[in-house]
């Protein structure tokens, strides 16, 4: 057996923290081995929805065996999750994926970048990352969430599309305007944001680690639904693409096509 578990977890709390953004804590043995940047497959209790939803881990509480997920309601599955109250059981499998390579930040200046529903995994990473310095940049449409948690871990620079809070524009605008410098970047967010970060990092010779997303079925590397294109031929697939759920979701931006 690997270190991942498939089990019925118990929901400890459920709360809407922003428009359509929910925070859910569960008690699960998956917390024992979970690392920042990993994800968990959450299964719907409604059996007509057969596929698990891959949700990134926002916080890990090893002492109490708990994991926190902060997710957006985007469809019927996540809508179902949002209606589960404390005490409800939820089938889960995890932790899955590789997680962020935290050792790359040792003695270096790190920027953690989250965009939209890519902000949550930055919380646990910001808590655990051991770097010479760490700043957190987060991009939102207009409403902030998880900003208190992030501010507690380092300097926090928000960007909003409408400029209502922080820099008006993208996370890259926030980096430029605030003259943030880095040796290493960790990022999670929508593909256009990751693409911009990859370009920015290449231009400034910064090592960048990006967490990717794609529609998944099995979550463990068997079905080949969630692949992304790679620069080099992948060892497992023997073609120029790789499994996001298994080899990822975190990749060196240089090695993947965005």
């Amino acid at each position: 057996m690997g270190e991942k578990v498939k089990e019925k977890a118990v929901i400890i709390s459920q709360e809407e923290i922003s428009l359509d953004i929910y925070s859910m804590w569960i008690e699960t043995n998956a917390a024992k081995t979970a690392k920042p940047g990993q994800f968990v497959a959450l299964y719907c209790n409604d059996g007509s929805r057969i596929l698990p939803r891959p949700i990134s881990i926002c916080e890990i509480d090893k002492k109490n065996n708990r994991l926190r997920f902060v997710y957006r309601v985007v469809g019927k599955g996540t809508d179902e999750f949002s209606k589960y109250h404390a005490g409800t059981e939820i089938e889960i499998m995890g932790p899955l994926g590789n997680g962020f390579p935290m050792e790359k930040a040792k003695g270096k200046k790190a920027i953690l970048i989250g965009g939209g529903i890519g902000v949550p995994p930055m919380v646990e990473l910001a808590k655990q990352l051991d770097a010479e310095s760490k700043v957190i940049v987060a991009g939102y449409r207009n409403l902030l969430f998880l900003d208190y948690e992030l501010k507690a871990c380092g300097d926090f620079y928000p960007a909003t599309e409408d400029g209502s809070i922080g820099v008006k524009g993208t996370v890259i605008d926030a980096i430029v305007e605030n003259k943030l410098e880095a040796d290493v970047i960790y990022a999670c967010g929508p593909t256009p944001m990751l693409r911009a970060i990859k370009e920015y990092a290449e231009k400034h010779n910064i090592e960048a680690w990006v967490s990717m997303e794609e529609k998944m079925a099995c979550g463990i590397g068997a079905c080949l639904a969630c692949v992304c294109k790679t620069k080099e031929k992948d060892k497992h697939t023997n073609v120029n693409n790789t499994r996001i759920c298994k080899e990822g979701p975190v990749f060196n931006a240089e090695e993947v096509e965005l």
Partner: protein
Amino acid sequence: MNTSVNLAGVTLKNPVMTASGTFGSGAEYSDFVDLNKLGAVVTKGVANVPWPGNPTPRIAEVYGGMLNAIGLQNPGIDVFIERDIPFLKEYDTKIIVNVCGKTTEDYCEVVEKLADTPVDMLEINISCPNVKEGGIAFGQNPKAVEDITKQIKKYAKQPVIMKLSPNVTDITETAKAAEAGGADVLSLINTLTGMKIDIERQTFAIANKTGGLSGPAVKPVAVRMVYQVANAVKIPIIGMGGICSGEDAMEFILAGATAVSVGTSNFHNPYTTIEVVAGIEDYMRRHKVEDINDLIGIVK
């Protein structure tokens, strides 16, 4: 209690196997499932050369099932023989390799390369488009089914399972064509061609536009087709389509399947295969049946 069944001279310890494409070559699921407990592992389709597969998104969930258009991504037969067969050989289960191709020659090349490997059976995916015939799937034309079966039989050293497409008007025609071509076993059903529109983005939910429908939603279609084919041919049948439990598997066996495959349900519950094995045994105890073979096709 006897749960072992015979497929063209190959004895399976129980009738439960995996459906191609849902289980990789077994490595990923071996964290959850003791592969020694399965009748057979059917691998993901493999071609003569590596295939990169389709653009993403490759899947979409639908009510009671899913659509997929993975595009048969595979590492090619050489890597498969070097890596995946030795892995599976470590287990006490039968190895069935699913073969795909773009031309008859592609299939034959793979089959020939597998001839001297310790593979127990070959399953031929004929739902692939035949590039030499304008892209119509081999499996949708009885004449093409008979022809490709005959060609593959010339090269195959292991028993050949022809996997039938349900995307036809009368599946007994392609079933009889495969039998006439020398098929040793039939497996059915492959996925049903479907489509999902993302109404918010106003585009197709999967990049390939169409995808194969699988999961619990297709089970009644699959049971019906297994029943029809069982009454049309003499060779054994592997039934599949939406099997999630021992009860589901029993429907297929009673309808005429000698063995069954668990596919999409692996994604919902990675323990499904072993739960189906246990469920079949429970059923036999409940009905005081000593031999699973006494139940095959008894519903007429």
